[in-house]
């Protein structure tokens, strides 16, 4: 009895969030942009799979399927989807129709953000997962590859995280700049030279190009390998690398950069990509994603409608 009352109370509390989520998902699904994107991404994925069917091993082929989600044009579509909820003509509908009702701005923003992330991830997974399953399970005239379930899941998760970050970045820009077109253009100018920007902060391993190059290695990574590796040394190495990156990141803002000692091998040196760190990528994209959502919420809270 108490449990049911509690559930009902929770249900009532979550009702506006779920209502906006459902409404936004339906509106997004009805949009031409999403349908075109779904069609285009399906066609491109099938084309890539078919054209490389007899040439690439599993890992290389799967990595080539994931590559378009990290670069133009899909990143642009994802960003545009993120920009829309609180800018342009939608802001009026929003003010008159939703935010004049008993809904908090935080509830609205979180629901709109969740809807966009869900939609983008759905489109991405609906197309890629069946194709990857086909690539792995089908008997193809190429040498066997050691692609693992863990590798596939982690590679999908990394790309999913990058897409979530892009939606959040678009979301933040849409909240800051009232004109969606301007926000999208600004994001293009930010995202295009992202490799260069990340290089300045010694974070080049997080750049989309680096991620896509490391994807084949990651796809062959097994969970056991990750577990059986000398954990303490891996952790220490990762912590050390992360600390160095943070130091470098801060030093760019605070003081002149020290002369590089160049004792450590460059990232991805030799094309082995063995020092790809899932943890650092998750932190590198996860933290900015959370920060973007938090900032968007803050700015939206301070904004007049």
């Amino acid at each position, binding site marked *: 009895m108490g449990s049911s009352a509690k559930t009902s109370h929770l249900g009532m509390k979550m*009702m506006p969030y779920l209502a906006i989520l459902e409404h936004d998902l339906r509106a997004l699904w009805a949009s031409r942009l999403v349908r075109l994107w779904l069609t285009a991404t399906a066609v491109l994925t099938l084309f890539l799979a078919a054209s490389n069917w007899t040439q690439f091993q599993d890992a290389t082929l799967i990595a080539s399927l994931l590559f378009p989600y990290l670069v133009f044009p899909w990143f642009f579509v994802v960003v545009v989807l993120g920009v829309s909820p609180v800018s342009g003509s939608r802001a009026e*509908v929003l*003010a*008159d*129709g939703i935010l*004049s009702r*008993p809904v*908090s701005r935080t509830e609205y923003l979180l629901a709109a953000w969740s809807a966009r992330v869900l939609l983008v991830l759905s489109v991405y997974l609906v197309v890629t997962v069946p194709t990857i399953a086909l690539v792995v399970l089908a008997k193809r005239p190429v040498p066997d590859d050691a692609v693992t379930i863990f590798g596939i899941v982690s590679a999908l998760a990394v790309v999913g995280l990058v897409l979530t970050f892009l939606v959040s970045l678009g979301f933040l820009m849409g909240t800051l700049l009232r004109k969606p077109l301007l926000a999208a253009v600004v994001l293009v100018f930010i995202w295009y030279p992202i490799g260069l920007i990340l290089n300045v902060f010694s974070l080049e391993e997080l750049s989309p190009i680096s991620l896509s190059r490391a994807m084949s290695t990651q796809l062959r990574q097994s969970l056991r390998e990750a577990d059986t590796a000398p954990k303490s040394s891996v952790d220490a190495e990762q912590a050390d690398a992360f600390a160095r990156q943070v130091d470098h990141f801060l030093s760019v803002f605070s003081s002149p950069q020290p002369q590089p000692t160049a004792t450590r091998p460059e990232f991805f040196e030799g094309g082995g990509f063995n020092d790809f760190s899932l943890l650092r990528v998750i932190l590198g994209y996860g933290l900015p994603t959370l920060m973007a959502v938090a900032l968007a919420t803050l700015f939206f809270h301070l904004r*007049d409608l």
Partner: protein
Amino acid sequence: MSTMPDADRIPAGPSAAQEPAVELAIRTEHLTKIYGQRLIAVNDMSLEVPRGSVFGLLGPNGAGKTTTLRLLLGLQRPTAGRAEVFGKRCGPNAIAVRSQIGYLATNPKMPGNLRPIEYLDLLGKLARLPQEVRKPRVSSLLRAVGLLGATDQRIQTFSTGMCTRLGIAASLMGDPPLLLWDEPTAGLDPSARRFTLDLIRELGKTKTIVVATHILSDIDQICDHLGVMHEGRMIFTGSVQEIQRRIRRDDVTLELEGDPENISRLAREVADLEGISARHSATRAVVVRIDDGRSRSRALAEVLQHVDACDLSLQAIHSGYNATENAYLQLLQEDEAHGFQR
């Protein structure tokens, strides 16, 4: 949808509103909104709206009416001052305040891809109404606003009048005790306008209603209290009777038939009478003003004798015609004339 018995209604002016016994629906103190350090939309506005009143927020375009309503809803943040609805402070996350308010925007923008039932159901969910309350209310509201026949149409195909009707239903979805309706008759045809005014009269029996408008005839028909805004400031608040009392009621307009020369002659002759002034206002009308202290009936009798003498035929006689409009215009003129004293 009853929220308050008639006995609780307080037909009070500002003096009564200051008494502690009067329950207030809205209260603002020095409410100010400045956009980007450039435009003062609401200027140091202190307002009290008694619970149960039908309050007309009157003012020319750009006077700050809509901004005031949006400040109450928390859609905008005040630059200074504060606003309260039923004793609760307004703000962007003030859900408790918005659950007490039904808002109708001017020509409301709604999600065009939805149908009326879907839209009202969404709003019911936003108001956290359980399904057993939500569904019957959607149906009864659509019937009440005459949109039952349009339930299979998408909102984007609706006319202005249909959108306003749906907006009215939307504002009533949560059964709020306070309605903020911004120009509810804008763009409506005569029958839709009549429907809206009748509805306000009906709802006014049980709810507090604030109607922002610049259409004075609407105010005359539905409101018992008034606030007049001009350039962001509230230049008058009080009952409709009080505002009408403010204008001179000694004007009488005579509508005449006859030679225009004779009408001009009548105006000159009447103006020569003691304690009476007159002017030829329109082609066939003379406005007669009777000074304080003179008997209106005797003065009028003298004027009517001159009408006969000038060989004119009296078609109609008006006294205090459209009093609210005159009072409103007089208030605006006075406010502009005060200059630095404002």
